[in-house]
C-alpha cells in the first residue's frame, strides 16, 4: 500500500493534476472564510461591470483633499480618456473638410489631433455642412476647450432650509485621494455578471457546488455500476443476462436524451442541485458496470477465489476480500472520470435550461447559461464566461491527468 502511494506521487501527471485540483479545493474552502458575502447578492445596478477596483465617488469627494500632486502628464491622460472614439472621428471629418490631407491626421495621437483642432477649427466656417452639424461642432469645440481649462469643479449642496445650492468645496485638477483612506472601496476582480452579482464570489461558490454535484453523481454512478458489475460478473446466469440487457440498452440509448427527459419531467421547481446530481448518476453507470463485470469474470476462476470458496466463505466475504482489492484501482479511476463527466453533464444540462433551479446556488453550468442568454460572448464581456470555462476545464483536466497518471501506474504497458 505504502509502495503504491509512493509510486503514485512519483508520476508527474498525477502530481500535476493533484496540485491543480487541491488548489481549486483550497480556493473553495478558504475564499468564503475571507469573503463572507452572499454569492447571489445583487450588488451592481446594471449588467456586466468590467473587472477593476471600484472607489466610491461620494466618499472620495466628501472631504477636502490634503493631497496635491503635480504630475506633468495628468492633463494629457485626462483628455485621452475623455475624448471618445466617435468624437475623434468627427474631428477628423471636420479637419478633412477644411483641407488637411488625410495622411497627416492620426486619431490615435491625441496630442497632435488636439493641436490640429485648435489651430484649424473656426466656428464661423460652414464648410457646406448642415446647420445641425455646425452646431454639433460648436458643442464639441466647447467641450474640448472645457477639457483644457485648468479650473477645478465646484461641489454644491442644497441648503435644507432655503433649498438654494451652496458651495461646499472645490475639487482642483491636481487633487488626489488615497484609495486606502476612502471609506468604500470594492475590488471586483472579475467584475459583475448580468444581474450585477460579484463574479468572483459567485464563481468560487459555483466551483464548490459543481464539485459536489460531480462527486454525488460520480458516487451514485460508481455505486450502481460496482454493485451491478459485481452481481452480474460473479453470480452470472440469469442475473447476468438481465443486467447485461439493461446495460446494453442504456449504452445505445443516449444518456443525454434520458437526462433531458428526466430533468424536464422533474420540473423547474423540484430541480435542486442534489436532484440533478442524482439524476446524472442514475444515467451514467453503464461504463462502470461493463468494466467491473469484465474484470470480475476474469477474476472469478482464479485459484485464490476458488480456494476461498472451498473454505466455505460467503459470497459477500469473497467479494470483499478476494475480488474488490483487485478491482479497487480501476474503480477509483472510474470514479474520478465519473466526477469530471458529471460536472460537464451538469453544465450541458444547464445550457439547455434544464439545470438546477436558479434561485438558490450558482453552478458552473448555470453561470455559463446566464452568460449565454445575456450574450456576454457576443458583447465581448469576457469576464462573464471565460473564468467559468477555465474553471470547468481546470477541474476536468486535473481529474483526467490524475486518471492518466494512475492508469500508467496500474497498466505497465502504458508506462513511458
Amino acid at each position: 500500500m505504502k509502495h503504491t502511494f509512493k509510486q503514485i506521487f512519483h508520476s508527474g501527471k498525477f502530481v500535476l493534476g493533484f496540485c491543480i485540483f487541491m488548489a481549486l479545493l483550497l480556493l473553495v474552502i478558504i475564499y468564503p472564510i475571507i469573503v463572507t458575502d452572499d454569492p447571489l447578492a445583487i450588488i451592481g445596478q446594471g449588467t456586466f461591470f468590467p473587472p477593476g477596483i471600484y472607489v466610491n465617488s461620494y466618499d472620495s469627494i466628501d472631504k477636502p483633499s490634503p493631497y496635491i500632486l503635480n504630475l506633468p502628464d495628468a492633463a494629457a491622460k485626462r483628455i485621452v480618456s475623455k475624448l471618445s472614439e466617435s468624437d475623434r472621428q468627427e474631428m477628423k471629418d471636420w479637419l478633412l473638410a477644411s483641407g488637411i490631407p488625410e495622411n497627416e491626421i492620426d486619431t490615435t495621437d491625441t496630442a497632435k489631433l488636439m493641436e490640429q483642432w485648435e489651430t484649424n477649427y473656426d466656428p464661423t466656417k460652414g464648410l457646406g455642412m448642415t446647420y445641425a452639424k455646425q452646431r454639433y461642432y460648436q458643442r464639441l469645440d466647447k467641450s474640448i476647450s472645457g477639457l483644457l481649462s485648468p479650473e477645478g469643479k465646484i461641489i454644491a449642496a442644497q441648503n435644507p432650509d432655503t433649498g438654494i445650492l451652496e458651495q461646499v468645496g472645490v475639487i482642483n485638477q491636481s487633487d488626489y485621494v488615497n484609495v486606502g483612506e476612502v471609506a468604500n472601496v470594492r475590488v471586483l476582480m472579475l467584475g459583475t455578471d448580468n444581474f450585477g452579482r460579484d463574479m468572483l464570489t459567485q464563481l468560487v461558490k459555483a466551483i464548490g457546488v459543481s464539485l459536489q454535484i460531480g462527486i454525488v453523481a460520480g458516487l451514485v454512478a460508481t455505486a450502481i455500476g460496482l454493485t451491478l458489475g459485481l452481481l452480474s460478473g460473479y453470480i452470472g446466469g440469469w442475473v447476468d443476462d438481465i443486467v447485461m440487457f439493461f446495460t446494453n440498452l442504456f449504452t445505445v440509448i443516449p444518456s443525454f436524451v434520458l437526462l433531458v427527459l428526466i430533468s424536464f419531467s422533474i420540473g423547474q421547481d423540484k430541480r435542486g442541485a442534489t436532484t440533478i446530481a442524482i439524476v446524472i448518476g442514475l444515467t451514467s453507470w453503464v461504463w462502470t458496470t461493463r468494466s467491473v463485470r469484465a474484470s470480475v469474470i476474469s477474476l472469478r476462476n482464479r485459484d485464490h477465489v476458488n480456494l476461498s470458496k472451498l473454505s466455505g466463505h460467503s459470497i459477500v466475504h469473497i467479494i470483499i476480500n478476494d475480488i474488490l482489492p483487485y478491482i479497487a484501482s480501476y474503480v477509483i479511476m472510474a470514479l474520478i472520470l465519473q466526477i469530471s463527466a458529471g460536472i460537464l453533464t451538469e453544465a450541458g444540462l444547464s445550457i439547455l435550461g434544464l439545470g438546477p433551479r436558479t434561485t438558490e446556488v450558482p453552478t458552473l453550468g448555470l453561470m455559463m447559461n446566464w452568460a449565454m442568454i445575456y450574450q456576454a460572448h457576443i458583447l465581448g464581456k469576457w469576464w462573464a464566461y471565460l473564468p467559468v470555462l477555465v474553471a470547468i476545464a481546470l477541474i476536468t483536466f486535473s481529474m483526467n491527468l490524475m486518471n492518466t497518471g494512475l492508469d500508467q501506474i496500474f497498466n505497465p504497458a502504458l508506462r513511458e
Partner: protein
Amino acid sequence: MKGYRKYFLNKLIWLLVTAVFAFILNFTLPRLMPGDPVAAIVARLAQGMSSSTGMKEVYEQYAELFGTNQPLLTQFFIYVRNMLQGNFGTSFSQYPRPVADILRTSLPWTIALQFPAIIVGWVIGNMLGALAAYLKKGFDKVLMPISIFVSNFPPFGMAVILMVLLGVNLKWFPTSGGYGFDLMPSFTWNFIWSVITHYQLPFWSIVIIAIGGQAIGMRSMSIYELNADYVKYSRFMGIKDRKIVGYVFRNAMLPQITGLALALGTMVGGALIAEIVFSYPGLGYTLLNAIMGKDYPLISAVTLIITIMVLLATFIIELLYGLIDPRIKAAQSD
C-alpha cells in the same frame, strides 16, 4: 456468409428491441411532468377572454386534440400509432404547426453538421493517436497533454471560444444561424456561400472535441499493440517497419470502431449543445426552444429522433465492423 447473416439478424433484433424501449421511455418520461400543458396553452391563448365558459370550451377542445384527457395506456397506443405514421402531433409552443413539420426543417441541418464532423474528427484523431504512439518522444509529449485538455473541454466551451476568437474578434465567420438572416433558402450561389460560411464554426468545434478523445484512445490501443508478441516476432523475422505499422494500425483500429459506436450517443449529445451556442437551426436549437416553451410533443419527438438516429448509426457501424473483423465471422459460424 452464413455466419455474417446470423450476426446481422442478431444485431437487427437488438436494434428493434432497443427501439421499442426508446419509444416507451420517450413516451412515459415527459408525461410525468407536473402541471397540465393544455392548461398552460389555454392560459396563453385565453388572455383577454373574460368568460369562464369560453375558457372551458377552449380547454376541452385542446385536450381532445392532444388526447391528454384519456388514460395513459390509451394515450400510449395513440402515440405509437401516430409515430409510426410519422404524425408527431401538434406543437404546443408553435401551435398550430405540426411537430413533423418542425422536425423536417431542423433534421437535415443536424445530420449534415454532425455526421461529417464526427467522422472527420474520428479519422483525424485516430491518425494523430497512432502517430503519437509510433513516434513517441516530442510529438507524443506535445500531442497528449493537448488532447487530454481538449477532450475534457466542454463541447459548448470549445464552441464559445471558437466563436469569440474567429467570429466576434476576427470576424472571419458569422456567429449564429445556419445562413444569413436576410436570405431566403434557395439554390443561389449567394445562399449556398452563406450556408458554407455559417457551417464552419459549428463543424470545427465538434471536430476538435472529437479529435482529442479519439487520439487518446488510439494512442493507448496502439501502444498496447506495439508491445504485442506478434510485433516482436515480426521484427525478429526482419519484416519491414512500415508493414508492421500497417498491422498494428489495423488491429488498434478495430476497438476504435466499436468505441465509436459506443461513444456516439455522448458525442451527439455534446454536439447538440454546441449547436445551441451557434443558434444553428438543427435539432439542438429546436430542443432548447421546446424546453423553453414546455412543449412536450416537440421534446418527445426530438429526443425520439435523436435516439433513433443514434441507434441506426450504431447499427450501421456494427454491421461494417462485422464485415471488417474476421473474428466475428469465425465466432458466428462455430
